């Protein structure tokens, strides 16, 4: 399961979503997630679902690959849904809506990372949030941290795979037995993984320092420019949110 993590992975492709400016995609994702949590009726549910299906089609990423991305968060979603039912949510439509809100948010985030390179995401964030630098907010540092975090996801999943294999070779029964045993069996994976992550980040920080990171003003490798398609992107995202607000307040 650990090797199935698709979040943070970029998939080479030529769909329309690849052509959008990363700022448009970031803002679109934000507005879509807000829309997901705003809608209230079946109409809103259907619209957000159809909107996602259209986006998926535009990205040309297979539905099977998208479902694969859901695997690692499957238990979290299941747990939240069960909790929702236990805590007096007797209305099954509301449970279904909550379920879709979580799945939709994961799907949409996956669509962003699958169609946008980590560098583009961090550049997009930096440019999009550049107005915050007026109040001396470290926008560039934040963008770098986010971009590095994305890069670490596939590295750490691979490392986790290696550690799991190594502990299995010592007879560790990972993910077997009762819940307590399952939780205990995670420790031999988590501890080496944490240590390796700290070691890697330490080394990375030193490597960046040795190449004089942060010693001067940085320029951008690729200049970002909006095109016509981005205007449509913004329009559709804003329209979506507006419709969901109407769905919540009027219908």
């Amino acid at each position, binding site marked *: 399961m650990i090797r199935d993590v698709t979040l943070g992975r970029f998939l080479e492709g030529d769909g329309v979503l690849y052509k959008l400016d990363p700022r448009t995609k970031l803002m679109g994702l934000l507005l879509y997630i807000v829309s997901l949590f705003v809608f209230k009726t079946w109409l809103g549910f259907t619209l957000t679902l159809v909107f996602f299906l259209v986006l998926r089609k535009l990205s040309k990423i297979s539905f099977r690959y998208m479902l694969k991305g859901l695997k690692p968060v499957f238990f979290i979603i299941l747990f939240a849904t069960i909790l929702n039912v236990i805590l007096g949510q007797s209305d099954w439509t509301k449970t279904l809506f909550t379920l879709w809100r979580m799945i939709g948010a994961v799907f949409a985030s996956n669509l962003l990372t699958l169609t946008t390179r980590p560098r583009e995401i961090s550049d997009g964030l930096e440019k999009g949030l550049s107005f915050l630098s007026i109040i001396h907010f470290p926008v560039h540092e934040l963008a770098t941290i986010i971009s590095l975090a994305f890069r670490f996801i596939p590295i750490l999943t691979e490392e986790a795979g290696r550690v799991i294999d190594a502990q299995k070779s*010592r*007879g*560790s029964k990972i993910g077997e037995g009762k819940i307590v045993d399952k939780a205990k069996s995670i420790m*031999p994976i988590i501890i080496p993984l944490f240590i390796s992550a700290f070691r890697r980040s330490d080394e990375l920080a030193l490597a960046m320092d040795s190449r004089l990171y942060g010693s001067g003003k940085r320029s951008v490798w690729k200049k970002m420019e909006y095109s016509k398609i981005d205007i449509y992107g913004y329009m559709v995202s804003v329209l979506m949110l507006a419709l969901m607000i109407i769905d919540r307040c009027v219908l």
Partner: protein
Amino acid sequence: MKLRVESVSYSYRKGVEALSDVSFSVEQGTIYGIMGETGSGKSTLLKLLNGLYTPTKGKIFLDDREYSSITKSTLPFRVGLVFQYPESQLFEESVILDVAFGPKNKGRSKEEAIMDAEKALVTVGLKKDKWNKSPFNLSGGEKRRAALAGVIAMNPEVLVLDEIAAGLDKEGKDRIFSVLEKLKKEGKTIIFVSHSPDDVARYAERVLVLNKGKLKAEGEVREVFSSPSVPKNQSEVIASEIREKGINLPSPILTLEELSDEIVKVIDK
């Protein structure tokens, strides 16, 4: 103990074979060296021997019993695998507890597991004052030996090791291989993978050479290194340069010590 690999192939993806039609058998109490370039299928072969992977084609037998008929969870205790950079698997609060992790998983009681761990730590030559220390406070070479002890403590009949000497200096390497020599004398079978012809020529008794997933050569170390198609070790490279100058030296030369002995013999003549 007898290990037999019969026409084994393994594919990570459909249509791409990482290992193709490999057959050989392993005798008890012998040190085997597997060598080959990066991507030749060495590590894949080790994971197949340990039962982590199941062959896509072919069969592996341990004492004439096919792997599929042996309970998967018991296989790592009979064929122990030491991974590349095994120090990255250490996690317990003390060295001794980490080494006892395998025996405990094997079903030994806590006391028995500690006893197994102590024995293994003595075998790898890790001093007693380090046993109760955190494994993260050990030096690189010590961590490697502690991780090796973690697998030895499970008392496997066969020990397979992936690039166990990678990144160690000569002293560190000699220490690790003297441990393996000791285990061999106890009747264990050792199979180690290395990309370095020097290490294989120095420490192995029999050699398997993999190339692009296929078994290219197999045999006694001297016989394999005599073949012109097998990558040369450093001592043999120097020896062949000396031969070119008209000085007669036997071939192949496996170690630097052997080379100096042969040179002394020539001078004495």
